[in-house]
């Protein structure tokens, strides 16, 4: 492991090359680069999730921590390791201070694995427009997590407004186990259900996406029953002779009920952040079903037809914080200049 204080991007590239040589990993089978954008407060959580995911999909891990945007002078600290605490692959943790944070790509671009796909994951509140963050612009896949936002539902709506093919949200990934179960329960069904009801937290973006997916695939009315606790509790389908129900029992199991059949306990494990991220790394192409579900829920049309390429929009959060007092100068703040999304973050 090499730790570099107050360094430059070129020195980081050199340190990584030196680590590679000493690890004897010159012919490493690098399949992708994972860029993680995270706040200092959550570095530990993001690191451990990224390490879990990297163990399933060896990748070059680039963790970018932006700090003190208002610091008087820019500064870069970096930690380069191969086969160290951040899993078996290559990892670089970069802390960027001051104005450098706004130009993070100048450090990250030369560190990307040659001609391999790039996935950028924002651990915390997603940027309102991914085009604002150059680390999202060059990525082939962009993974957000709207559940981290203050108002997750509004944040998900914003994901639809800002959508480009290649975007996914972890709220969708959290649904995979549910969707697997529901699809399996439909396998031997001979009739189309008349209606569906989802019981779950009203501010849960996964509930929103599930209703979008069901209405898109089944073309039936989906109503949402609000439950006080978080997360998804139950999904019911109206059939001719009763109800088909999938209900969560505990953090590992669900119960599947069907008319005329005994109830069955089926596995439905809550997965950790690392496992969710690993699932995202498995898919490097556009996720059509996600776009359709998001479109169906948000009623924003033509999501899948949008261009997958974004162009960077220069935006200085420092400047915008002057414009609108009351917001702090961190990234992810909404600029009042872009009227379409004002108020999205509540």
């Amino acid at each position: 492991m090499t730790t570099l204080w107050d360094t430059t991007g070129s020195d980081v590239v050199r340190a990584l090359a030196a680590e590679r040589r000493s690890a004897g990993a010159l012919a490493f089978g690098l399949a992708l680069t994972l860029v993680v954008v995270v706040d200092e407060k959550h570095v530990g959580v993001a690191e451990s999730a990224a390490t879990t995911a990297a163990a399933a999909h060896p990748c070059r891990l680039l963790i970018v921590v932006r700090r003190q945007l208002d610091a008087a002078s820019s500064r870069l600290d970096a930690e380069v390791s191969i086969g160290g605490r951040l899993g078996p692959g290559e990892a670089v943790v970069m802390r960027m201070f001051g104005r450098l944070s706004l130009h993070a790509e100048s450090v990250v671009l030369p560190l990307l694995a040659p001609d391999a796909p790039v996935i950028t994951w924002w651990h915390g509140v997603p940027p309102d427009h991914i085009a604002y963050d150059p680390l999202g612009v060059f990525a082939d896949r962009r993974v957000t997590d709207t559940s981290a936002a203050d108002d997750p539902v509004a944040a998900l709506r914003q994901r639809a407004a800002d959508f480009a093919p290649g975007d996914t949200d972890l709220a969708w990934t959290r649904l995979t186990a549910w969707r697997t179960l529901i699809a399996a329960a439909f396998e031997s069904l001979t009739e189309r259900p008349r209606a569906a009801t989802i019981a779950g937290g009203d501010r849960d973006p996964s509930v929103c996406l599930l209703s979008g997916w069901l209405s898109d695939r089944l073309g039936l009315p989906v109503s949402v029953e609000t439950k006080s606790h978080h997360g998804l509790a139950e999904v019911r389908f109206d059939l001719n002779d009763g109800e088909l129900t999938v209900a969560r029992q505990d953090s590992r199991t669900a119960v599947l009920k069907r008319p005329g059949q005994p109830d069955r306990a089926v596995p439905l494990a809550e997965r950790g952040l690392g496992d969710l991220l690993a699932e995202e790394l498995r898919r490097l192409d556009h996720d059509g079903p996600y776009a359709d579900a998001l479109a169906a829920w948000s009623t924003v049309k033509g999501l899948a037809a949008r261009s997958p390429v974004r162009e960077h929009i220069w935006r200085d959060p420092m400047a915008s914080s002057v414009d609108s007092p009351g917001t702090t100068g961190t990234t992810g703040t909404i600029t009042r200049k872009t009227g379409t999304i004002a108020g999205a973050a509540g």
Partner: protein
Amino acid sequence: MTPTVNTNPLRDPRDRRLPRLPDPCALVVFGVTGDLARKKLIPAVYDLANRGLLPPGFVLLGFARRDWTDSDFAEIIREAAAEGARTPFREEVWERLAASIKLVPGSFNDDHAFDTLAQTLLDLEHTHGIPGNAAFYLSIPPSAFPVVLKQMQRTGMASNEASGGWRRVVVEKPFGHDQDSARALNELVDEVFTPEDVFRIDHYLGKETVQNLLALRFANTLFEPIWNSHFVDSVQITMAEDVGIGSRAGFYDETGAARDVLQNHLLQLLALTAMEEPVSFNAEAIRYEKLKVLRAVSLPADFAGYAVRGQYEQGWLAGRRVKGYLEEDGVPAESRTETYAAVRIGIETRRWAGVPFYLRTGKRLPRRVTEIAVSFKPAPHLPFNTTDTTELGHNQLVVRVQPDEGVTLKFGSKVPGSAMEVRDVAMDFLFGEAFTESLPEAYERLILDVLLGDATLFPNNAEVIESWRVIDPMEDYWARTVPFRYRAGSWGPAAADEMLARDGRRWRRP
């Protein structure tokens, strides 16, 4: 295959996050307390459950001769799962699975036991919502096949129509011991089950690297143009084991290395290496191309020179002294069974005419390794001084099937320095590095395929018969000879090395 997939509105071919789950079904294992079932089947079923790949309605029915109580049986199965599972053993997953494991005790000639089994399968419709679907896994010696199959026929268990769902049967190797016995076995099984419902397990085909061979060949432009006799000098397919025969003396002494490994694993690897591009990636198309290659296999005219077999004698392996084959428990002192077989065969097609395929397998070799090595012809002209390229060998592409699954490419490269000197270097691709997404165990994949009804990775009748056509003449020749001796811990008898030396080649050390 299953029509419901198309009609399920929630299935979307683009939705690759959702795994395909089998229909609600039962897996009936005959010989559930046997070695294979405990070491491979039960752990594989647990791993499938743990990954959430079993359908909501799933029942494992064990049929065993011994009089186990239900709790003894549950304990044995539990131990097997906990020991053999590759995914972490989780109590709650196990409890859910254990709740759907049932034991049907009885012996194979006990009519009552089979009636009970048939009734249990019928009852699953009401108790577990399983509409007649069942796969029967025959983890029993071939000698017990006739009686078990007859019982299934008598009770109507094997019939798709009578059950209202699908009924499939899984058969393990050996698929007979020569062409005639294989044909008889096929007829026996096909009489009870419909031929497309018979799944013959060759667990090598469940391995990721073997499937990757097809991806390597047919998904890239790089390799296919040179995959023919213009560029390929020879192909070596090796399956080496460091273990001896263990406690299988009775079975092994009747079988030998050629029937045990060459007939199935090696010829299947050969077929996948040499076959033409299938018109699509489905069971029928792939089996069709494999069969074409097997039909084109030609045997050497000179068996004495090109079909070498050996038998290990005592020696040192991995720092320990090991017994010779004849000293193993249960092996007759005058046994002429081979534990090593090496053979040169040809493939009489336009693509492969003149390219020798060397196949070898053996026990008590220095290490466990299975690989396919394609060796390319030397460059037609080398514009270097001859002294510059003395250390340059043939270019090689090696598919490592196990262990260290991956691909190695060997080619010449300049040695850094002021002189022009070219030497072989190896470029390694390790499966575990690019995708460690834990490689599923072969049995896990194959059992899932059986339940899904996907026969792509299972050899069919015709392939088995055709493979025996290759083996039988060699066995006939060998029946009149005594195997060469080789020391345990060496790479086989000297005669095998001479066989390649005669062709101006040598075995690759894997």
